[in-house]
């Protein structure tokens, strides 16, 4: 079995447009959440959302490349370009090696909606334009990135709801462990336009604490009232340890364990057993004593039931050992298809810079979160291993354990 290491990271989120900006936001506990009045005009129950600008890539990508790529693909391009540069992978490396791509994405609503609107209005499919088909498929992010960067290994989108990005890293690590790929560009992307989350708003899943947007996302807090939608993209480049050493790559960390499970239960209400089994599998696969884990990045999205059940699952597995547990969603909102990848990037930034970002807005615990060690302020601490949870609709669960190198 091959060892799997992380050699590059990239991020484009409401906390910043690159690793450095995001690190600063995490360190300072800065929220990326705003109130968007346009959503209220559109009939949203909640006008809360993460705020990020759509990158202008007019002078970076050709006209044809931009025609095929949707909003979340632009975020993914920026994050991936940063990650490849940090991993010191040149275009010559991409051209001459079989580098793979596993990217999490589970919707492309804006592109689908625009093409259907044109079809309904014009009754002429030619007028939909050439880009719509490539923007409208769920695999849009991986198909665009693979063509832009000319990647030649595995080329797949992972759709596992809000655990997509985490499963992408986990499945990629298995392919490398088994010797089937040497290097894989993993990640997750999430569109932020209102159309992508209207149906989510419609099931009353979002916080309505509109009077104070920065305080709306409050994972584990007693008075949480729902999640806040976010998005962007995050890229994590994973590589076979030996080939990374051979090419002199920066070796940042090692993916030690990947756990997964399905709740086999309700479509939206998470349980305790499924996440618990995912946690236990990751720990078993990593072959570690849990006391080596210095930080847990929780999935906790700020929903009443989800946070409660995750707190129970973590407390059940970790018992009297209580490492710091935080949810970076307190600052970013729920980055959904991107979250599993972005939260690995956030946790990596913390591990490499000796701090744990605060679980902002954690003011009062409830009965279950009181069993965990949840800091509401930044903790300056060196740690060398973290665990990251990601769960999604349909009861899909993913857990990663990553060690500093």
């Amino acid at each position: 079995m091959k060892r799997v290491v992380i050699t590059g990271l990239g991020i484009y989120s409401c906390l910043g447009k690159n690793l450095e900006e995001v690190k600063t936001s995490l360190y300072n506990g800065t929220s990326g959440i705003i109130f968007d009045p346009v959503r209220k005009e559109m009939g949203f129950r909640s006008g809360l959302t993460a705020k990020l600008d759509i990158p202008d890539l007019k002078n970076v990508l050709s006209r044809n490349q931009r025609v095929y790529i949707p909003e979340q693909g632009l975020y993914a391009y920026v994050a991936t370009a940063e990650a490849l540069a940090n991993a010191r992978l040149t275009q010559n490396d991409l051209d001459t090696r079989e580098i793979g791509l596993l990217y999490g994405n589970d919707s492309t609503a804006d592109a689908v909606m625009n093409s259907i609107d044109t079809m309904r209005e014009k009754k002429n499919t030619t007028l939909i334009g050439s880009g719509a088909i490539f923007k409208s498929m769920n695999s849009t992010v991986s198909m665009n990135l693979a063509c832009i960067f000319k990647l030649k290994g595995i080329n797949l989108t992972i759709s596992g709801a809000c655990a997509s990005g985490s499963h992408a890293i986990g499945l990629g690590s298995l392919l490398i462990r088994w010797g089937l790929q040497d290097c894989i560009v993993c990640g997750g992307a999430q569109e932020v336009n209102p159309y992508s989350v209207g149906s989510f708003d419609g099931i009353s899943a979002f916080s309505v604490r509109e009077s104070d947007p920065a305080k709306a996302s409050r994972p584990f807090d007693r008075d949480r009232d729902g999640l806040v939608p976010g998005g962007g993209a995050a890229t994590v480049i994973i590589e076979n340890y030996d080939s990374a050493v051979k090419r002199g790559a920066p070796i940042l960390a090692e993916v030690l364990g990947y756990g997964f499970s399905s709740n086999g239960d309700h479509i939206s209400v998470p349980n305790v057993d499924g996440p618990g089994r995912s946690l236990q599998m990751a720990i078993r696969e990593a072959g570690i004593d849990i006391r080596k884990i210095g930080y847990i990045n929780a999935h906790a999205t700020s929903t009443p039931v989800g946070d409660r059940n995750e707190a129970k699952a973590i407390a059940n597995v970790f018992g009297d050992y209580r490492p710091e547990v935080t949810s970076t969603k307190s600052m970013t909102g729920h980055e959904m298809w991107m979250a599993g990848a972005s939260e690995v990037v956030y946790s990596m930034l913390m591990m490499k810079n000796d701090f744990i970002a605060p679980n902002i807005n954690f003011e009062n615990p409830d009965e279950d979160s009181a069993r965990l060690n949840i800091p509401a302020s930044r903790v300056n601490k060196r740690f060398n291993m973290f665990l990251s949870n990601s769960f999604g609709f349909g009861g899909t669960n993913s857990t990663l354990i990553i060690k500093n190198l």
Partner: protein
Amino acid sequence: MNRQELIEQVNTVLAETFEVAISKITPDAEIKETLDLDSLSLVDMVALIETTFGVAIKGQHISSIKTFDNLYDFISDRIKN
């Protein structure tokens, strides 16, 4: 719209959409080469002409329109008719 106005409007929308210098669009220039069109972006040109001028370029005509002059003639004829 006289022919010169038509030419200017066609050139403007094509240059803007396909991001080429308008000076490169000359009557005898090949459309595909000048605008760097492949089979997909050719669809966008057809859609653009239909949206802008209300002139549909059906399959059998696409292959006969090679130069910008061919395109001006095609649009001009359809508008007159």
